[in-house]
């Protein structure tokens, strides 16, 4: 049984505070490799940088189901594009970032974590029209100080540090380091009845690129994505009821039924629901709608792979600080472990 305590929170903190922009996931990869080494039978870093680990079930009788689980290592951020001199750089965003989150934020740049800030024209020098218009990324610069140096192509990420506050955690990269740490814990305590194929994927934020090749490598019987989903559960501006939320913080792991790219396998959706109910584990269905996870790529891989996604809800996606509830994470880990233990080939034999 995976445990949930300070050690897991410490690991999550470590994972959240490093920077791993899509295509440059090395810092997270290093931690993942170190953590899973004692537990995996086989570990491979593939051509894209995915970490692919297998742990075969110890059961000697019966057919073991090959279950792929995946979480993405990358996060949204910035890439340096042009040196304007005196420590000032033009940059481009990597992944879906609303530019309105950028002005006046602190960043770390490159492997040495050089400190910098995102600046733009001061409001006092703007006319009234300019003040209410969104500043595009083109109007912003990363400033490293008068003699600050970076290389074109360097990546940068938000400098916000992880913190635990009451029932919540705050971090720049809950999406999806919370999935990464969950996957590490699940691998450590993999039950005997399944072969766990753990994929720590790259480039999710820029089009689910890593997951596809990972699925083709593992050739699993089924797959479960572990991600973090935007909750969008704030009140309406006029105080009215929010009827368009995706999930709600504090209501447990969010099981996907349908999103923008995937109708999740109904057998697996029902199975997760039944597992949660049998174990009295809180859960919620994510409201059907847009968005997506790596499942969109995996379902279509090979001859088709039955997939489902489970997410820990968070607020303020792709911003300098997201917020999740510790209990939602704990219940996600409990649900996924309980589900793994119950998986048999019979699960996929029905329609």
């Amino acid at each position, binding site marked *: 049984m995976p445990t949930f305590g300070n050690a897991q929170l410490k690991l999550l903190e470590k994972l959240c505070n490093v920077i791993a922009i899509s295509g440059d996931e090395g810092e997270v990869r290093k931690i993942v490799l170190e953590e899973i080494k004692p537990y995996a039978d086989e570990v491979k870093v593939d051509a894209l940088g995915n970490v692919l680990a297998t742990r075969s079930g110890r059961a000697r009788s019966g057919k073991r189901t090959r279950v792929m689980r995946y979480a993405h290592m990358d996060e949204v951020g910035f890439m340096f594009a042009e040196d304007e001199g005196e420590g000032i750089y033009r940059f481009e965003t990597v992944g879906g970032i609303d530019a309105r989150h950028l002005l006046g934020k602190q960043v770390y740049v490159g492997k040495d974590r050089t*400190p910098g800030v995102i600046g*733009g024209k001061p409001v006092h020098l703007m006319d009234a029209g300019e003040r209410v218009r969104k500043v595009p990324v083109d109007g912003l610069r990363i*400033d*490293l100080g008068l003699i600050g140096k970076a290389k074109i192509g360097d990546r940068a990420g938000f400098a916000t540090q992880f913190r635990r506050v009451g029932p919540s955690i705050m971090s720049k990269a809950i999406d999806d380091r919370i999935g990464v740490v969950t996957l590490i814990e699940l691998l450590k305590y993999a039950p005997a009845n399944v072969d766990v194929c753990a994929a720590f994927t790259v480039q999710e934020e820029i089009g689910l690129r890593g997951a596809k090749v990972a699925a083709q490598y593992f050739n699993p019987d089924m797959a479960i994505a572990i991600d973090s989903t935007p909750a969008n559960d704030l009140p309406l501006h006029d105080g009215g009821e929010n009827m368009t939320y995706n999930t709600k913080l504090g209501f447990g792991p969010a099981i996907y039924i349908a999103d923008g790219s995937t109708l999740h396998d109904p057998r697996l959706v029902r199975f997760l629901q039944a597992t949660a109910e049998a174990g009295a584990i809180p859960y919620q269905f994510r409201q059907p709608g847009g968005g997506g996870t790596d499942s969109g790529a995996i379902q279509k891989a090979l001859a088709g792979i039955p997939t489902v996604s489970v997410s820990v809800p968070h607020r303020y996606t792709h911003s300098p600080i997201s917020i999740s509830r510790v209990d939602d994470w704990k219940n996600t880990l409990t649900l996924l472990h309980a589900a793994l233990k119950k998986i048999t080939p019979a699960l996929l034999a029905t329609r």
Partner: protein
Amino acid sequence: MTDILPFLKSIISISGVSGYEAPVAALIEEKWRPLVDEVRTSRVGSLHGLKRGSGKGKRPAIMIATHMDAIGMMVSKVADGFLHITNVGGIDVRVLPGAPVTVHANSGDELPGVIVMPSAKLLPESGSASEVLEIGYLLVDTGLTPREVEKKVRVGDLVSFANEPMELAGEIISGHTLDNRASVAALTICLEELQGKSHVWDVWAVATVQEETSYLGAYTSAFDLRPQIAIAVDGTFAKGPGANGWQTHPMGKGVGLCLGPNMHPFLHKKLTELADQLEIPWFLDVTTAASGTDAYPMQVSAEGIPTALVEYPLRYMHTPVEMVSVKDIQRAGRLLAEFIASLEADFVDTIIWE
């Protein structure tokens, strides 16, 4: 010259939103106490440090005003566990979404939080995805449950920026509230320099309150202390991204000496001559009317006070990542000290209008 950075970092890591300057005032008082002969607090909360001059009898006095208050926010409503906010001073709303803050709760707790932007689906339809959101639509999330929030937070609680200072390459410091705690640091350097110098005049080192909202501190302290001359220290626009017009000046290349109706031309001239003589690099900053600094109220306090303005270039004004060159702060401090030391007992009588 002692290293001012630890002190500057400490005073930009503590709150002191306009009207509520007590936390930062305590740090400044502690730093100034050994550097001055007495420290007291004005009726409205400004800090008055007196360093007596060597002159005999009734000595003339110079007042140096550096405002210690910070722009910030205040809770305007608590709803569903989220906090609505309004501004205290001139907040640039464009920097708010995603900004880490501290909520100074009525319960006595300092709650970490973040300013958040609800998604377009939750906002009125009018162009919300491309426009800057008004402060009225932004919320603060403390990560606490609605019940805990209701218990701890009240309307009127302060919200201040919470990001830590960053030291950048080239002796640059970045953080919130450098406007105008950098001036407090410059004045502190001035007081340190004066320890080894003799000066005839009394020096009133003043950390003023509520500059960002009403100039309350400068109006009242100048009236109370009746200095013969007054100098304000504040930031001006540094050249940088989006800021290259005539109003902007290079960071790290010297101090600004402001010229315009808000300043006494004779004092301005004396300061420029002294800077030249000491080879302290400086630039001329032209301000056609109100300077938007404590110089503005001080000039018309009591029967009117000859006033000057010393500036340092500041990048990204009124954002949580304001930026200054430590060298410019040291230059400002040194120029102030040298100016004070140069004042003869009869300096006031030499002030002339051309």
